[in-house]
């Protein structure tokens, strides 16, 4: 009887958190699953179609184009952010005034909104007025301006990658610096006494002891890249020919301008499933490496 009372008291303690999760996560998710089983328009009557939206996605060429593009973007940008962030963290880990200022400067773009940052870079890459073309022309790297958006999907992709690396690199850097500061100093000092050089210490001490943070940052970067939308909506508008429309762009397009909430919900569930698989795989890899 005492343990039953204890259970009820425990439930009471978790009730507020449980209510929050039910209202803001479980219910909307259930609603989205229900919507995905319907032809659900914002302005017309909805119609139950079972798994019709999922079948439609399977046969929709744009779904595969968007998914492939999103995966390509993720595979390209993630190593750049990881390696770039880690190298800058190594460079600025020590707490000297200059290194602290450098870390702050690198981190500054992180606090700018993604929409504002994308608009800024859209105009920096402008064919007629952009500073990027101007600089490249003046340096003699190109002999005529580059059409960054609207012509070649790969050129547009790299322009977006440049803008996002500028904006987001500082976030990983700060997390890596914090992880490096947590590495016990005596381990590094002992290695130095034994004659280990900088890169040897990084390889055998710093890198293994910051592995958890590396995994966390990789996970955040992968999830963020799979959910990319703002930068492509603003900078490329999916052009040319929808080849730079990411998966979330496709979800937005179908849900709102095309008013097909049901199909958008189905696409969202598919993307959520893919992200879940990627997350589980990464967790398993991490456990294996620790074992």
């Amino acid at each position, binding site marked *: 009887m005492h343990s039953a009372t204890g259970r009820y008291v425990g439930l009471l303690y978790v009730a507020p958190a449980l209510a929050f999760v039910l209202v803001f996560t479980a219910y909307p998710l259930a609603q989205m699953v229900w919507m995905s089983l319907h032809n659900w328009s*914002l302005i017309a009557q909805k119609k139950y179609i079972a798994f019709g939206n999922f079948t439609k996605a399977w046969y929709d060429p744009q779904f595969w184009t968007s998914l492939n593009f999103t995966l390509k973007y993720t595979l390209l940008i993630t190593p750049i952010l990881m390696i770039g962030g880690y190298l800058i963290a190594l460079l600025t880990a020590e707490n000297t005034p200059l290194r602290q200022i450098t870390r702050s400067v690198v981190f500054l773009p992180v606090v700018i909104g993604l929409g504002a940052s994308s608009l800024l870079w859209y105009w920096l890459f402008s064919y007629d007025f952009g500073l990027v073309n101007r600089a490249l022309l003046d340096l003699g790297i190109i002999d005529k301006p580059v059409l960054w958006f609207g012509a070649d999907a790969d050129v547009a992709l790299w322009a977006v990658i440049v803008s996002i690396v500028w904006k987001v690199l500082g976030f990983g850097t700060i997390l890596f610096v914090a992880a490096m500061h947590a590495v016990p100093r005596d381990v590094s000092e002992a290695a130095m006494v034994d004659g280990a050089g900088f890169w040897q210490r990084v390889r055998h001490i710093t890198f293994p002891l910051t592995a958890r943070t590396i995994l966390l940052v990789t996970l955040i970067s992968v999830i963020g890249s799979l959910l990319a939308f703002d930068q492509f909506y603003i900078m490329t508008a999916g052009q040319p020919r929808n080849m730079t429309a990411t998966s979330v762009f496709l979800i937005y397009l179908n849900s709102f*301008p095309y008013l097909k909430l049901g199909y958008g919900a189905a696409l969202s569930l598919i993307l959520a499933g893919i992200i879940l698989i990627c997350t589980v795989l990464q967790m398993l890899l991490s456990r294996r490496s620790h074992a």
Partner: protein
Amino acid sequence: MRLQIWRTCRAALAGLLATVALPAMAEDLQMWERSGGNAGMVDALVAAWNDKNPDRKINLTYIPHTEMVPKIAQAIASGEVPDLMGMDLIYGPQFEAAGQLVDITDKVKDWPELKTASPGHMAVSTYEGRIYGVPLYADVSALFYNKDLFRKAGLDPNKPPTSLAEIREYADKITALGGDVKGYFLPGSCAGCNIFTVAPLIWASGGTVEPKDAGDEPLKGDGVKEVLQWARDMIKAGNVHEDARAETGETFHLRFGSGKVGMMGTGNFNITLSREQNPGMDFGIALLPGMKSGQVSSFAGGDIVTIPNGSKRVDDAVDFMKFLLSDETQVEVYAKMLNMTTRGDMAENKYFQAEPLVQDVAKAIAVANTPYTLKFFELINSPQGPWLQMLQRAYYEDTDLDTIISEAKAQMKAIAAE
């Protein structure tokens, strides 16, 4: 002392009640209108109404044009609707078919003004014989040509091209002037710009674009392939600026006024805009031609004003519609700003008579089309839709045009059938 405190409290209470009561007594009509349209015209109409109706003013809010359809749909779904909505006229049928607009037939059917209102606007404001809106403003597309560049290229500035072949011939000569001057402009990433200015070339050449309904065939007629081939050849010949490929519509209205384009399809709004942008430029207006001389067409666009279901001020909203169609508004607001009148019988007025260019562009109304379909955005206006994809492939690739057209047809038919 006590009396003083009581008097102060009484005054404060009266002030508080007045602050609460005043907004309730003088509640404005809420009107939404899309951005990227003829904002100057709509501002002037609302200002004219507010002058005459100080007790029921209109509070106008602009919605980004790319967000207009979902914004209105969300408002209707949530019940938070404005009293009046200006919308791109081609979306009228979609909302009418979904039963989201107030049927005003019984309130307006005896209005004499409706007999001469723009046929294109009234067609898309009508669904199954019932009326849901009236014209807000009218735009028509036409061929604007730079007479200064014509003269420099040795062309007669009083003889605009009358066929696509002539446009090509003249464009080659203007492009040969060099510098940053090109003979023509074709927007590469703007679906709406192309339906406004390239679709008329197809219509004039005997082709069609959108399917009317699920059973109808889109992109019919030889004119479709002929015009796409013409456009592809124009771009390959270097007659179009390279950055036109990235034109999403944001700067489309500024291209002609730059003075660097010999000819381009654009709208009547560019008369005033080009004069503001480039006061010294001498330009003329002709009708958009087809493959053969004598074939002409235009796109009759603009906005309609409607009343969403849930509006609490239907009678006031209908009064605004009557105001828009009144003789005085047609002349002293529309015509005075050199905008198209929305009633054909008001085109003969003192302002247009003093401005030959407006008379030239007004001729386009007689040959203009307004597409009627329930899925215009997804089929045509969406930057991700089959219309723009087809054009981009035609303009910038070497893929066989028959393949491009048949794939676009299949996509359009699939959308129409949903």
